[in-house]
């Protein structure tokens, strides 16, 4: 049936760029297996289960897909299990001792009297990753109600903003130091006098903006794309007025 070929069409790379290339050496061979798992779930959900015929060789020493918090660690005796995967129920649903009633039970994240927010962030990241790889049916009885805003702003700052800020400030300082030295050696204008000069202040501004906006090589391309994107839709709507040759009605 045509269905079989379409469900096994290779997933376009753009859909999941991170998963495809992220850490090939850390996961021995989970990628093709995960893909097969997901496609099979999709197939099993809607259509008749389709036979999986994985190459027999790629089975040894796979890391356990279910981590400790899911209870039974499904160890890597995968070779015989592989062939029955098509018929057996797919990967178990997300389970975690601290995930209660559709939200994280903060009392289980206790660290010396206060809540260990880093652990909450880690747990939520893991949960989202799990569900992204193995989408689950929603359940009206166990509705998920977790909202990330319960994690206080300073926890996010400490964990994510500060390291990035440190990196960017470091870059700005390095660029600034060498630019100041360079300008001084060329023009003899010292640092204090440079700060009073309009051109130098402009250069400083450009350096800071550049460090903020362009952090990776791809960012240059991304910025240009964003600028195009913001006006693209407008252009599509204006198209009908572009080739207007009738001008006013004939008088």
């Amino acid at each position: 049936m045509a269905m079989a070929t379409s469900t096994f069409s290779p997933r376009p790379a753009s859909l999941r760029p991170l998963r495809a290339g992220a850490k090939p050496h850390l996961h021995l061979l989970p990628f093709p297996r995960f893909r097969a798992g997901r496609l099979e779930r999709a197939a099993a959900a809607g259509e008749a289960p389709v036979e999986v015929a994985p190459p027999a060789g790629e089975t040894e020493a796979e890391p356990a897909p279910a981590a400790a918090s899911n209870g039974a660690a499904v160890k890597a005796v995968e070779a015989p299990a592989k062939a029955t995967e098509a018929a057996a129920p797919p990967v178990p649903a997300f389970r975690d001792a601290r995930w209660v009633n559709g939200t994280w039970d903060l009392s289980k994240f206790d660290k010396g009297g206060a809540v260990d927010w880093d652990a909450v962030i880690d747990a939520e990241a893991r949960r989202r990753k799990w569900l992204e790889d193995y989408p689950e049916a929603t359940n009206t009885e166990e509705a998920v109600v977790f909202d990330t805003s319960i994690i206080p702003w300073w926890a996010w700052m400490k964990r994510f903003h500060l390291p990035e800020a440190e990196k960017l400030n470091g870059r700005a300082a390095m660029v600034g130091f060498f630019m100041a030295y360079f300008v001084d050696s060329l023009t003899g204008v010292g640092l204090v006098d440079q700060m009073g000069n309009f051109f130098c202040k402009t250069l400083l501004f450009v350096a800071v903006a550049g460090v903020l906006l362009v952090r990776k090589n791809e960012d240059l391309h991304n910025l240009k794309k964003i600028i195009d994107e913001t006006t693209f839709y407008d252009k599509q709507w204006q198209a009908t007025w572009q080739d207007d040759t009738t001008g006013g009605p004939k008088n």
Partner: protein
Amino acid sequence: MTSLSSAVALPSSCRGARPAGGRARLLVARAAASSPKLPSGRRLRVAVVGGGPAGGAAAEALAKGGVETVLIERKMDNCKPCGGAIPLCMVSEFDLPLDLVDRKVRKMKMISPSNVAVDIGRTLAPHEYIGMVRREVLDAYLRSRAQNAGAEVVNGLFLRYDAPKEPNGTYVVHYNHYDGSSNGKVGGEKRSLEVDAIVGADGANSRVAKEMGAGDYEYAIAFQERVKIPDAKMAYYEERAEMYVGDDVSPDFYGWVFPKCDHVAVGTGTVTHKADIKKFQAATRLRAKDKIKGGKIIRVEAHPIPEHPRPKRVSGRVTLVGDAAGYVTKCSGEGIYFAAKSGRMCAEAIVAGSANGTRMVEESDLRKYLAEFDRLYWPTYKVLDILQKVFYRSNAAREAFVEMCADDYVQKMTFDSYLYKRVVPGNPLDDIKLAVNTIGSLVRATALRREMEKVTL
């Protein structure tokens, strides 16, 4: 739109060039004194191709305005694959009888990629709802109203038209006429019709658009299965519609479960990965698995949905309305209201430009309809485009989107703009708070995304 019909009866000196790109004030359309009166006092004759909401509304407004109208529809009992949601303003603006609305949806559930579920609809007043209709019922009703107003409804398939040979000549519309049975016999009898103007309301695959060289647009494929589920499960969807977002369900759109008269429609759509639509559909069914368990699929349907207007919406005295023109919003994919409204606005512009059917119309009169439509609804389209760009970008953005939907202010703004089609500014302080919360949600979701990359399951 009262402003269009107000100045109808006074032919006077011509109004001047069409308003550029949309800054027109109230559209005051007066027939050009120079546009010739129609020979031998005959009335203006217009063909409306396509009998959906756009065609039906256009034909009715034309007929009411004194224009001789022919509505050509290829399949009178067509069940157009459609979500079927209409906003409250459509019921009032088009005087729709309430029995047309199968269901009044008052609760919507937004479900994120990690199944975070948020209920929206708390802020709705008791009289506010999203109406779910069956297209075959709505379309037939609007066509019958057009017929009662004096339009001639013809069962036929539009083939092509011949452009006029002189400047004020007539178009010749060629179509296959089907007689008797509404299912449209294969073949049919070739007929032709002389008209002064053509309104293309024949949907996303518009033939009129092709004939006039309107150009192409990007389109999404919407795929839908109608599922009859047991009554106990149907009770859950009594007043509730669901929207699922996630890469598994669609990379650039959303999956839905919408209640219809006695079954639910489960579907999804995509622009960029059309070949994978069946996979996305399976994923949607999986996410709603328990809620539609035991259901039987009674119908599978798919249809293209335009993503933006065609490059050219008018050419000579031929113009496009509705899906044929590409008036579907981004983000929500809403098209019924804009189809009907554009049909009506186009018709009113023709009626005004022809002084109730006594004078010939010109392309400039049709451009007045375009200018007015663009002016009225451009903010709505642009805002939805921005929402789509920001929130449908990635799973992280979708998580932030669902989180934002939990906020009362967001719900109120969303429903106000959807139900009444106005982009209301609202309280500035609340807007600032909303902006801060949005940025916060996006930042948190992106930060979590970076953590997710480090997780090895």
